[in-house]
């Protein structure tokens, strides 16, 4: 172990990244179906080991970075390199830690799928991209991996490509992410223009270029360039746009619920734990760039996202969609954490959320897996993901129930769980921040508290509907199927879930279950100073408030869902709006998709009928001109020649008539010329 620890962290980090890449390439080039899974699993195990080694060497140690020249364009050289600081090694460790259980779980979950080798290939590609994203030391490289992550996500969402909804969803996911990528690219362009480098160490390291630049006289001045200060805000917003798309922030959150079309294991890894968190990671990385207005904007968007997603989650029946909205909502919390300046809290929440949300998804996957089996077995046609078809599963799947409950408690921020620590850290910080700012800003922590209670309620609803009460579908087929068709998920699935369940508990992060300040993670990321004064009262009141609120919401949920005293009209406008996500998708379809298509068709119409007919018109003119010239040639130029000829001929012919040997004609001409001569003599 000691010897291993002496290996340079650079190499271990590289190996961490390389292992899944090798797995990917191997499967892409020579992959055979029967080996599928093993290679990827092996890759991620290696990755995990190396990541752990790296983490051990780097965490709370000086920053390490290494670079190689990549290419030179013009006078500027771009380097490829890795940057290992607490933030990046934390993420570096997190990814394989979450990915490893998911890989193990997938072995069972994806068993028997005809395209399973593709699944493993894509999954390895994703792990590679995600690991690459976190350790890269240049914004350009980050961007590259950022897009690769989106690409892998595209492949995995559309894994079942024969499903129309799946390919619609992956297209949507990629396109919405592309919008964010544009933001990233513009951000890159601004940074490069301003600082002539994209290296994170140069930019954001100690005494980096960012800190040397300042806004003076309306100009954003850096050591190498200066531009209008608006560009500072735009740069911040551009990076935030990137994060918005990737982390599914309102109004770009629409892709994430649809992305649930992918396999559940994928949703757990990519669309809950890691990739969607990349936005938060990015914002944490470029945090020094943000100015006041950008931060406020981020906090506001985060709040809106948290609230709207929680609201949408209330109206969903699809178990994965509820979790998806829950993810969006929690990402909103993280954004608020960034927006108020406590990105360490945001990162903390990111990490804890990764574990419990991953577990939630895996549990949901286990349920869906069993429900699908049941569906095949009973030959009934129902949606295995629909909560309304479930109920009473506690009896059949007690371990899953237990693990999911832990995760749900963590999500709800119940004490003794990791979620309690991280969520409180955000809410309390938000409160403290608002207090230092003024009255109006208090709206944000208040909303966050309400959203937290709502979170408790909707996750309670999920648990109650799925695990308590009666198994509704079962009643229909009870007489046909005497043997118990539902059972606990296989061990291959349960073990990784169990591991993740452990990570949802407080001791993993902090020895003191009630103070997030004591967590090692916050210590490691500790910011030098918060911009606001801590408030000790908040540390007591807010957790208490949340706890009581959650408890009350659960009691209500119990009454409504378990005891069947549902007071609300399921068809009420607000519930319908929640179910349909306030019709945002339809709005987007209407405005952007249809709009773009209409514009495209118009352009094509314009191209075909205006631009091309302009050409045709010119052609017509040229043709007409040529016809005219042909006509002229025939009738005027040629006609002139012909006319000369025919005049000569005619004259000759006429004169010839004179010489017809007739006396009188001769006489006539004699007299004619006499007359003409006389006329000439007299008048001229």
């Amino acid at each position: 172990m000691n010897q291993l620890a002496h290996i340079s962290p650079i190499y271990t980090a590289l190996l961490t990244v390389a292992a899944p890449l090798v797995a990917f390439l191997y499967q892409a080039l020579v992959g055979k179906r029967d080996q599928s899974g093993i290679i990827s699993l092996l890759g991620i195990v290696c990755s995990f080991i190396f990541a752990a080694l790296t983490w051990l060497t780097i965490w709370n140690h000086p920053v390490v970075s290494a670079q190689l020249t990549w290419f030179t364009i013009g006078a500027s050289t771009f380097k490829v390199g890795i940057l290992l600081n607490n933030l990046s090694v934390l993420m570096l460790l997190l990814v394989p830690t979450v990915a490893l259980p998911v890989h193990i779980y997938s072995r069972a979950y994806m068993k028997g799928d005809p395209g399973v080798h593709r699944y493993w290939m894509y999954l390895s590609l994703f792990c590679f991209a995600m690991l690459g994203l976190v350790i890269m030391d240049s914004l350009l490289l980050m961007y590259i991996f950022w897009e690769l992550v989106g690409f892998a996500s595209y492949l995995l969402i559309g894994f079942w490509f024969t499903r129309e909804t799946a390919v619609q969803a992956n297209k949507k996911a990629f396109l919405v992410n592309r919008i964010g990528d544009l933001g990233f690219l513009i951000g890159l362009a601004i940074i490069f223009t301003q600082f002539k480098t994209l290296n994170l160490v140069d930019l954001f390291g100690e005494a980096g270029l960012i800190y040397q630049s300042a806004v003076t006289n309306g100009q954003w001045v850096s050591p190498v360039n200066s531009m209008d200060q608006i560009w500072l805000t735009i740069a911040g917003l551009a990076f935030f746009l990137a994060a918005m798309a990737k982390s599914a922030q309102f109004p770009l959150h629409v892709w994430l619920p649809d992305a649930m079309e992918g396999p559940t294991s994928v949703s757990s890894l990519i669309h809950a734990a890691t990739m969607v968190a990349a936005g938060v990671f990015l914002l944490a990385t470029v945090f020094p760039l943000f100015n006041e207005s950008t931060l406020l904007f981020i906090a506001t968007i985060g709040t809106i996202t948290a609230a709207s997603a929680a609201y949408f989650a209330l109206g969903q029946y699809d178990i994965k969609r509820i979790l998806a909205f829950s993810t969006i909502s929690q990402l909103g919390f993280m954004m608020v954490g960034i927006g108020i300046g406590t990105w360490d809290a945001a990162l903390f929440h990111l990490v804890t959320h990764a574990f419990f949300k991953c577990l939630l998804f895996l549990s949901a996957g286990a349920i869906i897996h069993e429900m699908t089996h049941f569906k095949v077995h009973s030959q009934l046609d129902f949606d295995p993901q629909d909560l309304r078809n479930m109920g009473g599963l506690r009896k059949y799947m007690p371990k899953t129930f237990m693990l999911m409950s832990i995760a749900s408690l963590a999500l709800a921020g119940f004490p003794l769980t990791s979620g309690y620590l991280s969520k409180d850290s955000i809410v309390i910080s938000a409160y403290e921040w608002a207090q230092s700012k003024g009255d109006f800003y208090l709206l944000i922590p208040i909303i966050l508290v309400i959203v937290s209670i709502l979170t408790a309620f909707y996750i309670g609803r999920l648990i109650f509907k799925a695990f308590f009460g009666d198994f509704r579908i079962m009643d229909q087929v009870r007489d046909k199927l005497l043997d118990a068709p539902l059972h606990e998920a296989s061990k291959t699935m349960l073990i990784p879930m169990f591991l993740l369940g452990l990570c949802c508990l407080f001791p993993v992060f902090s020895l003191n279950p009630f103070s997030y300040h004591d967590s090692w993670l916050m210590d490691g990321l500790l910011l030098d100073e918060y911009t606001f004064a801590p408030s000790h009262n908040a540390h007591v009141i807010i957790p208490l408030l949340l706890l009581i609120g959650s408890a009350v919401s659960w009691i209500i949920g119990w009454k409504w869902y378990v005891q069947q005293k549902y007071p609300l009209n399921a068809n009420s406008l607000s519930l319908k709006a929640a179910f349909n996500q306030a019709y945002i998708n339809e709005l987007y379809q209407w405005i952007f998709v249809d709009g773009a298509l209409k514009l495209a068709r118009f352009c094509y119409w314009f191209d075909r009928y205006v631009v091309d007919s302009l050409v045709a018109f010119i052609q017509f003119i040229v043709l007409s001109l040529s016809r005219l010239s042909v006509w002229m040639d025939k009738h005027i130029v040629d006609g002139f020649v012909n006319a000369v000829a025919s005049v000569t001929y005619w004259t000759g012919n006429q004169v010839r008539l004179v010489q017809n040997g007739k006396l009188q004609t001769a006489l006539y001409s004699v007299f004619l010329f006499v007359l003409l001569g006389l006329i000439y003599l007299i008048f001229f």
Partner: protein
Amino acid sequence: MPILSLLIFLPLLATAFILALPTRYKSSYKYIALAFTVVQFVLAGICYAHFDASQPGVQDLGGYQFVEQLPWIRLDLGSIGKLEIDYLVGIDGISMPLLLLSAFVMLMAIGASWNIQKSPKGYFALLMVLNMAVMGIFCALDFFLFYLFYEVMLLPLYFLIGIWGGARREYAAIKFFLYTLFGSVFMLLIIVGLYFSVINPLTGAHTFNMIYMMNPQNYLGDSIFGWDGYQEILGISARLVGFVVLFFAFAIKVPIVPLHTWLPDAHVEAPTPVSIILAGILLKIGGYGIIRICYSIFPDMAALSNWWLGLIGVISIIYGALNALAQKDLKRMIAYSSVSHMGFVLLGIASLTAEGISGAMFQMISHGFLSAALFFLVGVVYDRVHDRNIYSFRGLAQLMPKYTGYVAVAFFASLGLPGFSAFIGEAFVIIGSFNAASVGTGLPRWMAIAGSIGILLSAAYFLWTLQRMFFGQIRLKGGESWANELNDINSREQLILFPTLALALLLGVMPSLIFNNLNASVLNLVSFIQQFI
């Protein structure tokens, strides 16, 4: 060894061989063509390997490499002066990568024409003539020579489209021919104007030498394109007129938006190999011409008018992308995507920054590989069922998994997925044009931002096509018979596609392969133009 002359005239030898062989050996024509093209590719590779990346080139003849100069036409014209036309070829960092690209795309085109049945003799002979002209264009440093190759190129293309093309081939061929000829005829006027304006400082004779044309000192003071005199044509500065006319001549080739309508027709009607050449090489001649000729000979006007160039670029990007989105014909969609992608080239060139121009060059190279691959992929499905309509296919991924894999890779590479070459090109065009405002070239930043919308739209049309044609349940217009026809790609096709896409990947991962050779020239060009801003 006169390597460039060999490179240029080897195909002519192939043409002679092909023409000399009697028709009963017609199956050997493609092997002859292939053999010569392989040799050519190797020669181009030697050029690449022996290229000294530190030599700047552009307006400095000393910086060109593999230079060959032979007096070609010397005529004493009495009072008009002495006519001086040289056979002058040479390459610098700007032409060398394009030369390599051309050799490669030619190889691809030969591979794609393996199954040509209709009079292979004429076909391969014309293809080789085209090959020669293209090589000549990228090497020529004498404007007269350049123009000669430029015109020679049109002829085989006209016949290749007009004889071996699709249903509306005559229309497309004539449209293509007229468009290009329209541009080049006016170019000839400017060439003559330049000839009378420039003198060879060594002999004092008028000259067609492009390098001399790039030096303001070689211009006669009172000549039409002279630098000190304010000559005017129709009230507009003569140099501006010259620049604009040359620009449009090349912009038709690029193509820019109002002058692009030949491209969809020509691409759609042309046989697959010709589409590959059109997209892979022909469009690059436009971009190359703008850099080599418009920018280097009229640097002052380039600095003056880059705002308009940038605007045209941005319009091309977005307009082309929107048009591609509306297409139902796969080949037409790719043709319009070419318009969009070549818009980036123009935007990058207009930025007048090292990043922008390098990005534009890189985009040209990358587009050369990728569009060639895309057209080849369209050809694959068209060969099998003779239909290209997007809506005629559905769920191809199940029938042709390997093909779908290649298509997906090519599509993603084209839409600028990092790791592939197009990304580097587009990203640096955007970065460069964004940077332009800071170096004061007058290109506003919103153009860069507007250009980036093209990246989004390109993702939209490529993914939509992928969804419509390849994913979902199998549903084919031709039913069962099509399903039997649509075999997965064979090894010949893989042999062509794999290296192409691998190259796109290689360049995406190691852009230095291109940039290293490009940098000196681009920096020299930028500083040359910067004097006039």
